[in-house]
């Protein structure tokens, strides 16, 4: 998080997060291709489905690791508030959309969009939180 920083914990977190995001993209393509083209059965279906969730789980663990490594507790507080904002916005938007889908014939929101949507909301939330402390 943050564009200009000398904070080593932030750099490590950002670098690792980019790697995990790339892994998520690669695994998603691989799983989609595998499930559609390979006519997989049994446990292979489960393995292919679980594959893209691994970088997501790792990203959550990575966030926990960052919180332990971060010596600047203000920066930790900003991240916690941003994550909370991201979780809140994702839950609110998907709940509203769910009702619209079920009862107002709105277009179906693919559940696979949750992670990218969450990341977008965390990013927006981060900008708002940082602006509040300016």
């Amino acid at each position, binding site marked *: 998080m943050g564009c200009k920083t000398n904070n080593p914990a932030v750099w490590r977190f950002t670098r690792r997060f980019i790697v995990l995001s790339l892994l998520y993209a690669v695994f998603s393509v691989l799983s989609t291709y595998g499930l559609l083209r390979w006519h997989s059965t049994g446990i292979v279906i489960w393995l292919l489905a679980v594959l893209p969730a691994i970088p997501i789980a790792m990203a959550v663990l990575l966030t926990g690791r960052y919180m332990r490594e971060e010596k600047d507790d*203000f*920066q930790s507080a900003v991240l916690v508030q941003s994550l909370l904002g991201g979780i809140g916005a994702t839950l609110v938007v998907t709940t509203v959309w769910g009702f619209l889908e079920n009862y107002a014939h709105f277009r179906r929101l693919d559940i696979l969009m949750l992670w990218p949507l969450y990341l977008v909301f965390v990013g927006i939330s981060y900008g708002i939180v*940082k602006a509040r402390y300016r």
Partner: protein
Amino acid sequence: MKNRLRVLRAEREWSQADLAERLEVSRQSVNAIETGKYDPSLPLAFKLARVFETTIEAIFSDEK
């Protein structure tokens, strides 16, 4: 929570960046504490007291 960070900094002619370097935190952290938007943790409050060679009570007061 009110604080005297700006005054203590000015007495030493330190910029926010100078203080941030001494505390090993970001300049934004110093700014957030100084403007009263963020209350520091106890370890950081002790560090501030050490840097300014005073007590926590001499830097912070709990009046709104």
